[in-house]
């Protein structure tokens, strides 16, 4: 756990706010074929196979996998089973599209934020965090 709260600046991919524990993945996961209809990691080759992404701020280095991931994420958002937010180190059009469509259809907003690789390394699995936005200024608060 971090001794003192710290704030990491980010770049807005999609809008929204979140306050939830961090789930930091050792490897990226594909939403299509990698995350099941119950919000669990179903990719048997993934080191965190079985972990639940629902309601967590999901942290992974990059997006991954099939372009149908947008559909799967939108469906998770519709069901209320999606992550609370997503932190990446580079923008990903596929997950972004899923979040944009769910915002249009259901007003279900999942913030997707890009942080620098150095800041990414400071994020610890399991700690409480929140995402706030003021226009394009995004902050990830840790601890």
């Amino acid at each position: 756990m971090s001794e003192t709260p710290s704030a990491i600046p980010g770049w807005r991919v999609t809008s929204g706010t979140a306050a939830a524990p961090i789930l930091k993945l050792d490897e990226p996961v594909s939403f299509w074929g990698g995350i099941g209809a119950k919000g669990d990691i179903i990719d048997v080759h993934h080191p965190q196979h079985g972990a639940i992404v629902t309601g967590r701020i999901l942290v992974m280095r990059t997006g991954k996998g099939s372009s149908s991931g947008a559909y799967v994420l939108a469906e998770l958002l519709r069901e209320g089973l999606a992550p609370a937010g997503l932190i990446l180190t580079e923008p990903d059009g596929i997950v972004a599209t899923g979040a944009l469509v769910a915002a249009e259809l259901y007003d279900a907003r999942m913030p997707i934020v890009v942080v620098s690789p150095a800041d990414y390394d400071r994020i610890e699995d399991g700690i409480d965090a929140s995402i706030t936005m003021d226009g394009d200024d995004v902050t990830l608060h840790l601890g």
Partner: protein
Amino acid sequence: MALTLTEHEQAMLAGEHGPAVALSMRIVTELGRIRGAERLVDVESVHIDGCIFYGQAGLDFARKLVDLGGKVIVPTTVNVGSVDLIHPSLILTNTEHEKWVAQGGRDLMQAYVDLGCRQTWTCAPYQMDSRPGVGEHIAWAESNAIVFANSVLGARTDRYGDFIDIAAAITGKAPCGGLHRDEERHGDLILDCTSLSEATLAQDVTYPVLGYLAGEIAGTQNPVFVGLPADTSEDRLKAIGAAAASSGGVALFHVVGRTPEAPTLEAALGGRSEVPVHHITAARLNSARQELSTARLDQLDAVSLGTPHASVDEIQEAYDAVIGGPPLADGVAFYISTGRSVFAEAERRGLVAPMEEWGVTFVLDTCTYVTSILRPGTRTVMTNSGKWAHYAPGNMGVDVVLATLSECVESATTGRVTWNRELFA
């Protein structure tokens, strides 16, 4: 570097062309901002992938566009759906989940028809009458269609997927980023195949295995093949691309002396000189094929051909392999997936009826690895597709062998899995 819109595009975004255009434009422009595009590009055609059913959200989105009066404004083809509309009984509806997918899949396909899409239902739109030319900007989804259009046709599409595809079709616009741009289309690494023997290069299964390796090595970069025959068929290039887009995220490859942007190695590399070179050997091909082939049992339950959808030439090759030979073994199913237009051509050529009599089940509009077609209890399937071999174990819970067409047919007639593990020499 901000996204700049023309006056016309701003009007579309502001709703002056109706609410469906405005909604679609919000998605296109937001993706453009996220991808760092400076402008949008007009696209000449769209291929839709969002018509496979994974739940209510996709149906809600397509129906919302229908309700808002949305219509595609460029020629738009559709990928496979979750249902064979021609042979609906092929889709299993034994479980509640299967019933839900069958009904939702049908409704989703109808919504895309209502939006003005051509009822192509194929993952191989490049096997149809009209196809894009060199340098033409398009917005295609479905990874094998993307890589074929970029690599073999020389058309330009970035990696589009569900939702952005129909948004591009309704606006005729896509962000001018990624593979729309010259500088993103050059080769990043060389796959040197010059040591492969003529016998290896003559095997059909060499090409999906090459693609599988290319995806593993290149990830999302653009590989350049050196040492493949100048007359490598489109079907073989299709097999390379589909496998490379499955094991990796390849959206463009070059074959020096064969594909349109690679008349020479220098042209393919766009002037770069220091790129990594990977040597592809027969031993490496053998081990890649063994890695993809998960089957441990002798008993064969099914053969699945046609991923991506079979061409007429591939149906002809399968015809030549099965007709006049031994009958299909009891208990073995033999599937060939293809599109409606290719199937109609195969019927005109008189190929279909004798093959059906022999025991082939033609699957149209969908594919055996995206929906419930395989009989319950199916454990071991042989396929000539690297893409099918990559996805089916996870999707369908079956074991696979990636095999030559002749190995598939021979095994189908004996009911026993037979393949040469050291085929490449």
